[in-house]
């Protein structure tokens, strides 16, 4: 009974999280386009399904993923074996990335763009290995208690330098591959691991030291993919890649549920299994280490299993709901707005859709809550979400401007990261790790498809833009600007406090 009431509460909560999207869509439809969208009923149903999915997902995280991450790191801390912990970090990072569907998509696009110089499989393995290595490094950082800012400053300086030399075709993709590595399930798990580790050792602060793993996992693929790109463009031979082009270029959202053997139910079941398959490597890593290395039963086993199940089902409902409710409306609105031939509306739309989808992002809701707990009253989860959403909105708007203006992505990205590096120096140290993690959280199941569709849509409609090159890179913008907005906020709060402090 209690569980049920909790769930109702969550449902209510999830609904309020989705209000911004509904408002944005409503305002655009009635004020600017001035027509009732066709098929508004499936859209409404879709949004309701999204609400349900978000509620289930969050419940599942709380029951399954957060406890197991916390428990595992506590057990590793008790064991005190650094090699084992690093191997675990590597395996977790590797498993989180290697089966990531978004990365598979990006990798096959890379193969096409580079005319076969880049091999999709090598790219995936490269990204997975580099993420694994950096998670292993990241856990050592937590234990050593280093502040994240030096790691990030050096890392992003390398990113900017590498970008300068990297072939232009590969830049957008490289940044996108950084963004897509961390999905909605892996982010909470990796974050829980870091926070749990920081909590399990005396003298480590969950906010300053516990966060940061996700931020590192986002940064490193940018470097490795671009270096790979430089190498293959210098030494590799171009060859024809034909297969799969149509698939990758076609931005159309596919059927919500494909029928299998004439039954929608079977189709849904198959999709659920696919979703399960995607998180299988991570579950395998967790189980192997739990039973072979720690050799203890999972505490609250039935709860954890239920939690994982809820996460998968919730995620599925969420994605189906998005496909029913949000994507069609986003697509039709984007087309209609482009048809209006007034760029200002496209900018407005980009801003609004960025803001609204980020507010609905379930992983962000969860991480915001964790940050609020870890900060012990210094931060507010909702404030963080609004800041991140604003950041994404600005980022996407800037990215859209780049596509419309046709500028090279090089300069935008380098300028963006230069600002990030500068702010990292200036901002109070407690926010740095969290800010970078939030940059990684924003780019998951909701934002990525929507933003990619927007980018590809714009690039196809504007003359002289190459879909393959100009259509990508928006995700990177969506991940840079939240870092900036969160750090700016922390600096502002700090200044305000200092100013108040000087007044008697």
């Amino acid at each position, binding site marked *: 009974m209690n569980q049920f009431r909790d769930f109702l509460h969550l449902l209510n909560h999830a609904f309020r999280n989705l209000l911004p999207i509904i408002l944005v869509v409503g305002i655009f439809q009635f004020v600017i386009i001035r027509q009732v969208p066709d098929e508004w009923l499936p859209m409404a149903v879709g949004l309701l399904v999204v609400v349900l999915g978000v509620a289930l997902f969050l419940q599942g995280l709380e029951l399954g993923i957060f406890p197991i991450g916390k*428990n595992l790191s506590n057990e590793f*801390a008790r064991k005190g074996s*650094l090699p084992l912990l690093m191997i675990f970090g590597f395996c977790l990072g590797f498993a989180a990335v290697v089966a990531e569907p978004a990365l598979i998509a990006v990798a096959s696009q890379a193969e096409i763009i580079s005319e076969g110089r880049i091999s999709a499989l090598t790219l995936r393995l490269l990204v997975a290995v580099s993420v694994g290595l950096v998670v292993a490094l990241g856990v050592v950082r937590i*234990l050593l208690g280093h502040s994240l800012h030096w790691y990030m400053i050096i890392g992003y300086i390398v990113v900017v330098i590498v970008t300068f030399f990297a072939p232009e075709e590969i830049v957008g993709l490289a940044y996108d591959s950084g963004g897509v590595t961390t999905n909605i399930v892996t982010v909470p798990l990796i974050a829980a691991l870091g926070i*749990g580790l920081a*909590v399990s050792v005396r*003298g480590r602060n969950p906010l300053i030291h516990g966060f940061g793993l996700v931020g590192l996992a986002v940064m490193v693929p940018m470097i490795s993919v671009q270096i790979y790109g430089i190498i293959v463009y210098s030494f590799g031979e171009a060859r024809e890649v034909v297969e799969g082009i149509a698939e990758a270029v076609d931005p159309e959202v596919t059927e919500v549920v494909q029928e299998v053997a004439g039954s929608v139910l079977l189709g849904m079941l198959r999709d659920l299994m696919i979703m399960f398959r995607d998180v299988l490597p991570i579950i395998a890593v967790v189980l192997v280490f739990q039973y072979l290395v720690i050799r203890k039963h999972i*505490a609250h086993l039935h709860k954890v299993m239920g939690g994982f199940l809820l996460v998968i089902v919730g995620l599925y409902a969420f994605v189906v709901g998005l496909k029913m409710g949000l994507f069609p409306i986003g697509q039709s609105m984007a087309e209609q707005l482009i048809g209006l031939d007034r760029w200002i509306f496209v900018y407005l739309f980009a801003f609004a859709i960025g803001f609204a989808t980020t507010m609905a992002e379930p992983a962000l809701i969860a991480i915001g809550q964790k940050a609020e707990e870890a900060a012990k009253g210094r931060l507010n989860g909702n404030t963080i979400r609004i800041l991140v959403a604003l950041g994404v909105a600005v980022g996407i708007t800037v990215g859209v401007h780049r596509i419309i203006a046709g500028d090279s992505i090089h300069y935008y990205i380098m300028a963006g990261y230069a600002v990030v590096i500068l702010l990292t120096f200036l901002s109070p140290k407690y926010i740095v790790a969290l800010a970078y993690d939030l940059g990684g959280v924003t780019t998951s199941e909701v934002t990525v498809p929507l933003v990619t569709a927007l980018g590809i849509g714009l690039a196809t409609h504007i003359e002289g833009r190459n879909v393959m090159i100009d259509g990508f890179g928006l995700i990177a913008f969506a991940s840079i600007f939240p870092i900036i907005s969160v750090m700016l906020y922390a600096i502002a709060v700090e200044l305000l406090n200092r100013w108040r402090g000087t007044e008697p």
Partner: protein
Amino acid sequence: MKAMLLVAVVADELEEAAREIARREGARGMTLLSARGMSFPEHITFFGLTYLGAETVLVALLDEATAARVAERMNVELELLEPFKGLAFCLPVSGTGGIDIQALRQHITEHAPAERLEGGAR
């Protein structure tokens, strides 16, 4: 009838089992606090850092007999006195601020008599 405060400090993975014992013994509710614990001499982990275990503190106001019983059952059944497990004990409560301990006791005997007998056999 005296009131007693049951304080059980248990490792995180034992929280559910501890809760179950208290429930079966008739406790009407309890407060759970997340905490971290350390041992002396310190358990040293990576880089000479001190390990802090995740634990839960369960607190409940009970009558004297029940509180002692719950604490004993927890210590024995959960093997709390082993390293990294925890500890359960009772504190005397001098003022209960109007809480009727007699009624509480009555509730406990009424609501969990069978369970208590079964527990007594062990």
